[in-house]
């Protein structure tokens, strides 16, 4: 269901009777709350509602569904990206949900329970003056990327490919947030933007026909992030995901946001392979 | 050289100068004497336009101070023109106002080099000579904070003289000096007077005034009470106020 307004107080009544409650680590069972770190600036996964307080989005609704399965309340804490990893390390937060890509390099620092399959794609203006259709067309063009996303590596790989063909490198500009990146695209500061396909398509939809998102050139898993060694919690959350997928809550949520193409059928731990 | 006509000056409600009129001829040494707070320093500061006068008029060397008469309107001078006039009016301040970030010698050479464009070499030579003349040959490279009161006062005198002004304004130039040095400064001033420099000297030392002055002006509460030759004013004054003032000299 629609758990947009749900909060700790509201869902606390799920109670100890919930099916997966006993799988949780003892400390979380007794506190009854799971603290989640999230950078709530990333639609459609998480944003604040118009009141500036309520978290809405795919992640929040999956969390709502998990609350019922795990019998605890899940609290979103909005912090900047820089604080998410230290926050997990210091046990301020039990896990993080922020549409984070699962990669091999990151697996050295944290663990993931994969829950979504996203592609990286090209966002361009409708006029498309530079006639970009694929990643291979971006040699020598100005490409905008959001800081902290895996598209940086894609651009680096493309630069190598360009140089191998004797073409100029991709001119990458990294912006701190999605907003500035889109602004740079609309004001002609960059020619195209590399973006993950989910938020890309939602941006294109809201742009009033000015922007369009091309179909993804590659894809990889998003994961819920855990500190290393929190196996008990990972198992519990993994089980929870499997159950909400089984009763189709998961599919409904993605469908509601038009992201059913990103649905996964299995929820592996550290399933990222790149 | 200097002419003041009904010069008035107030600070807020305090009338400090009340219609002062006097004249100092070229080459003359005029001494201003009077009780503390009578407006002597203020009058000096009006002469080189450090204070704007509120009423009356003032001429130095035939030119109005700070203004030019065109038709029957007084035009305020441009900053640059005022600076030019001030360069020919030397001033020794009661509180010295030495430049603390410059050594004694640099204090003296600053004006000639920057304002008059004298070559550094020459300015330094002249500055040295001036400082030696006031007995500071061995303190040239001291900063003001490393000088005694009397030494600072002498640097201030040397700084003003280095500009070779036509009119010199001294505000108690001997207050921090010992009797020996007073004698020496007196000699310097006599030399200057002979070379034709006009001087206005504020002083509390009647002996000094008697020695150096051609004319003595006695101020009291912003009013010019009495003017005349030192022999007259200092020994046989007309006004009761002057008499009572001089009666107290030790």
């Amino acid at each position, binding site marked *: 269901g629609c758990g947009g307004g749900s909060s700790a107080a509201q869902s606390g009544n799920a109670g100890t009777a919930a099916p997966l409650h006993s799988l949780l680590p003892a400390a979380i069972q007794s506190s009854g709350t799971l603290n989640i770190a999230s950078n709530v600036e990333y639609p459609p996964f998480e944003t604040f509602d118009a009141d500036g307080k309520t978290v809405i989005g795919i992640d929040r609704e999956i969390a709502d569904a998990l609350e019922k399965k795990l019998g605890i309340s899940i609290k979103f804490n909005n*912090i900047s990206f*820089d604080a998410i990893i230290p926050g997990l390390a210091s046990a*301020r937060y039990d896990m993080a949900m922020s549409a984070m890509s699962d990669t091999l390099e990151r697996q050295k620092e944290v663990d993931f329970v994969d829950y979504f399959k996203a592609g990286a794609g090209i966002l361009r203006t409708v006029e498309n003056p530079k006639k970009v259709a694929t990643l291979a067309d971006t040699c020598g063009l100005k490409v905008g990327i959001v800081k902290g996303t895996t598209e940086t590596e894609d651009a680096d790989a493309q630069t190598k490919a360009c140089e191998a063909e004797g073409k100029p490198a991709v001119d990458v500009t990294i912006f701190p947030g999605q907003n500035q990146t889109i602004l740079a695209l609309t004001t002609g500061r960059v020619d195209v933007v590399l973006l993950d396909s989910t938020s890309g398509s939602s941006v294109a939809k809201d742009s009033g026909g000015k922007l369009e998102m091309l179909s993804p050139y590659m894809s990889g898993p998003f994961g819920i992030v855990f500190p290393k060694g929190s196996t008990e919690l990972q198992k519990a959350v993994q089980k929870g995901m499997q159950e909400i997928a089984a009763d189709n809550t998961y599919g409904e949520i993605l469908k509601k946001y038009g992201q059913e193409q990103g649905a996964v059928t299995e929820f592996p731990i550290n399933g990222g392979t790149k | 050289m200097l002419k003041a006509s009904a010069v008035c000056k107030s600070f*807020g409600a305090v009338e400090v100068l009340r219609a002062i009129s006097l004249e100092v001829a070229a080459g003359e040494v005029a001494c201003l004497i009077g009780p503390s707070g009578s407006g002597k320093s203020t009058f000096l500061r009006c002469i080189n336009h450090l204070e704007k006068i*509120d009423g009356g*008029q003032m001429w130095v060397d035939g030119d109005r101070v700070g*203004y030019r008469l065109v038709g029957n309107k*007084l035009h305020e001078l441009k900053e640059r023109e005022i600076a030019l006039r001030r360069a020919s009016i030397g001033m020794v301040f009661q509180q010295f106002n030495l430049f603390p970030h410059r050594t004694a010698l640099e204090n003296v050479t600053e004006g000639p080099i920057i304002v008059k464009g004298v070559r550094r070499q020459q300015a330094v030579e002249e500055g040295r000579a001036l400082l030696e003349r006031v007995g500071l040959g061995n303190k040239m490279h001291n900063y003001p904070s490393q000088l005694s009161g009397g030494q600072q006062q002498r640097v201030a005198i040397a700084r003003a003289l280095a500009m070779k002004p036509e009119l010199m304004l001294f505000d108690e130039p001997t207050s921090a000096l010992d009797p020996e040095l007073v004698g020496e400064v007196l000699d310097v001033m006599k030399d200057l007077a002979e070379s034709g420099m006009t001087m206005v000297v504020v002083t509390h030392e009647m002996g000094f005034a008697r020695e150096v002055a051609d004319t003595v002006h006695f101020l009291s509460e912003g009013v010019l009470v009495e003017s005349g030759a030192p022999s007259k004013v200092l020994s046989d004054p007309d006004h009761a106020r002057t008499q009572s003032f001089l009666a107290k000299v030790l």
Partner: protein
Amino acid sequence: MSAVLTMEEAEPAQVVPSRHTGRWITATVVLVLVALLLYAMATNERFQWDVVGKYLFADPILMGVLNTLILTVLAMIIGIVLGIVVAVGRLSDNFIVSKAAWFYAWFFRGTPLLVQLLFWFFLSALVPRIALGVPLGPELFSFDTNSLITPFMAAMLGLGLNEAAYMSEIVRSGISSVTPGQTEAAKSIGMTRLQTMRRVVLPQAMRIIIPPTGNETIGMLKQTSLVLVIGYSELLTSASLIYSRTYQTIPLLIVAALWYLFITAVLSVAQYFLERRYGRGFSPLSAIRVDKNKQDKNTVDTDKLDKDTSGPAVPANGPASGITTSAPSANTEIPS
């Protein structure tokens, strides 16, 4: 009198202030540019003024303003008080104290505020429990670090301690602007170091300290947006949370900017009055202006002085009798 009045003095003369043509041209150019800019802004539809209007007083924005103000005020209080301590320590004769103060200023100015905020917020990663006890003996209290250091506490510690390092340099510069003669005079009437600082040096240093402190305060207004890193939101964050949802970046940044401009204007006015207060006695002219207002109220009035707020009273001396004086008129009018 030695003066012989000549014809010249009888001329009627009117004072014409000198024209600064160059300056007036500059001034006009500046005015025109500002006007053009304002006009361009007001009419440019990309600014979406309707959106600005809609959000200017929206609840999340107002909450953000409040948070910004609270954080700024508290952080500046910590910063100023601790900054004075560090500055005085820096000027201490004690070698270790002075070096420790130097180290403080170096370390806290040298570390990015972001790192400091993260450090305080995630202290528990290093020190899971804070315990107070007798060394080698029993523990008296012990707290879970995460519950002791709330996000608010972490924000205060991070902003305040960082600010103190910057303030210490400002205070030090202010103190060094007071001439040594002042300290000597204070010592000569038997003041201790502390009394000298409090009664003589700092009040005079204030005049010099205030403008850069205004800088710091205004800077702090904006710096508070870094507390987002530890999940604390203020004005700029509130705005960015909205535009990350609605993509109305420019109008929402204008909303934030308008608020910052407003707060800065209020602070500037406060600064103006503080500067006037602590400038008393330094600029003879400004003091005279105060004079004119207070004159009649303020003859020889003990109570006013006691309250330590009186301006100077300058009772007019009556003119000496028997000598005519011309009434001085205001400013530059020179009667013939």
